[in-house]
């Protein structure tokens, strides 16, 4: 009898990371990839199945009822400062709840959730190595992160509620590449704003390394929370220097007001709370992922920055902005 093919579900497959993960899994032998995303998947390999539905819809349940799903990669989290708190909450929290319900009801043995390293938040009194059991203070000054923190904690509650499901929560450092996230967008600006007198340490992670970590997390027997970090942390100004773009030195006390107004008027894509990321460090301790998940980054800082600056930015669908 032929061995049954492993069936993997990817939520948010039309996002940049979803696409990269789909292609990576697609290349593996004996793997069936099913994506869920209401956005279109451009240049989709033919034998990847794509359900264009909202994960909150009942129709989604049919997939889990009729198919024997072996692993769920939950990448479909949204973090778009332009969207309202209600939509964020509903999409991220209700969506995740739904996915985990299905996993429990239809006995999916493995769930990998891509949370974000931003749950810890940049703070002046952060330790240089933030470990997985540090408090999630990211929403302290950046309220829009509340629902992502809730999702992270909610996923953690499954460790003890349903110990038969191997739940893995990944908290990657700033992912650089074709993704549309805050850091990559920041590096793509024509002039990079930096704060006078501040030069925090930053960690980056190449998108392909992020995908490798997601794949590594699917290994049977693995469960728990993992920080995922790329190459060594470096000062922000060194990272900025790699882009060879001019910088703008701004005083930190003046900035929040100006940026908030620009954000409202749509001159800026960053809410003022994100300024803290260029002010204070939030560097993660990646030891657990290295030791237990055996994850080793393969791309350096320079390559990651180049990947973010490459012009052919993913031309995504409706929710182009990704959480991580």
């Amino acid at each position: 009898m032929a061995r049954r093919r492993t069936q993997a579900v990817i939520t948010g497959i039309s996002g940049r990371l979803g696409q990269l993960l789909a292609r990576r899994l697609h290349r593996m032998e004996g793997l069936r990839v099913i994506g869920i995303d209401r956005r279109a998947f451009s240049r989709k390999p033919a034998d990847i199945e794509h359900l264009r539905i909202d994960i909150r819809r009942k129709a989604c349940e049919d997939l889990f009822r009729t198919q024997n799903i072996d692993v769920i990669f939950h990448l479909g989290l949204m973090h778009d400062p332009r969207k309202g708190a209600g939509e964020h909450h509903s999409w991220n929290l209700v969506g995740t709840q739904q996915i985990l319900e299905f996993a429990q009801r239809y006995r999916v043995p493995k769930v990998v959730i891509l949370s974000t390293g931003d749950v810890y938040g940049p703070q002046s009194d952060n330790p240089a190595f933030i470990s997985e059991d540090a408090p999630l203070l990211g929403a302290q000054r950046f309220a829009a992160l509340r629902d992502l923190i809730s999702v992270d904690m909610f996923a953690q509650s499954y460790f003890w509620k349903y110990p038969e499901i191997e739940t893995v929560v990944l908290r990657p450092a700033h992912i650089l590449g074709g993704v549309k996230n805050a850091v990559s967008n920041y590096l793509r600006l024509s002039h990079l704003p930096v704060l006078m007198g501040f030069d925090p340490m930053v960690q980056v992670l190449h998108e392909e390394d992020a995908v490798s970590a997601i794949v590594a997390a699917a290994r049977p027997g693995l469960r728990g929370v993992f920080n995922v970090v790329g190459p060594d942390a470096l000062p922000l100004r060194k990272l900025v220097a790699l882009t060879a773009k001019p910088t703008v030195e701004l005083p930190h006390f003046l900035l929040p007001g100006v940026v908030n107004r620009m954000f409202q008027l749509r001159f800026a894509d960053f809410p003022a709370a994100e300024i803290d990321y260029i002010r204070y460090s939030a560097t993660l301790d990646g030891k657990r992922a290295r030791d237990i998940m055996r994850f080793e980054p393969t791309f350096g800082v320079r390559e990651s920055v180049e990947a973010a600056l490459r012009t052919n930015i993913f031309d995504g669908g409706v929710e182009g902005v990704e959480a991580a």
Partner: protein
Amino acid sequence: MSHDGFLKNVEKLQRFGEAMSHQLTAWTEPGKQRNRVDQFWREVAEASSEIATALLTPETWRMSTEDIDRRVQHLLAGKNLSTFGTDAFGYSPLHVRKLVPVLEFLYRVYFRAEVHGMERVPEGRCLLIANHSGQLPFDGAMIGSALLLERNPPIMVRTMVEKFATALPFFGELCYRCGQVTGLPDNCRRLLDADEAVLVFPEGARGISKPFKDRYHMTAFGHGFLRLALQTHAPIVPIAVVGAEEQTINIYDFKWLAHMLGTPSLAITPLMPLLGPLAMLPAPVKYRIYFGEPMHFEGDANDDEAVMATRVAEVKGAIQRLMNQGLAERKGIFI
């Protein structure tokens, strides 16, 4: 009130009056007062001439470029630095190199620092514990300079800095690049595990902001450093800094304004009406840094506070003895 009780009180009052008049005569006695003023000006004159001579003859105190390079090379060699030249805390030896001339000036000219017993600082991990004073943390900078400029081979001291200070623009960045880190137990543990020399001021903000009248009276010590020493099996080197306690005269701590500005304290100095914030700058007092014998502690790091307190008292006692020695040995504040 009984007659006896009344008499006792009268006697008390009498004794108090005598003591007061004795004090007053001592203070107003023309010869004594003049002696103090004379002594002060003599010291200032001597210190000024020392500083002036040093400034005129930089070749007598400045290190050669080769010597600086050799020291920085040593710093670069031992550490876990990324390809971008910094460690995980943001410390960059090449950045320190740029600051060496400034440190040298402060250390050799301005404070004319004198070091005793530096050979007692061991190689590898150790916790340096010192008294904290002087409103601005020049004591930390001078302990660091001593081990960086004078010791062979040099040691880069990693100081646990108050988190308020590392959050400041410019100063925070300077701290991080020069190997100083935010004062968190986790940071300290990691540095000790990496065999670094970590400087801790257990008095913290309490100590540095204390009023001038409390000079050379150490405030309460925190116990965290001892737990970390037990956890990491790091020896403790007691250090007394004599001189820094007189560098800035804090006559009043402006508590509510400090609270409004979000600073731990706001010292008012006598010269503030004249100089404004510049009055916070230290006077050119003479620094005397005394390193004590390393102390080794073994035991349970999670033991009761009471157990920790006795050991912390031992460390504090050692610092007090070094401080007493320094005070007995010195001729004056400025010389």
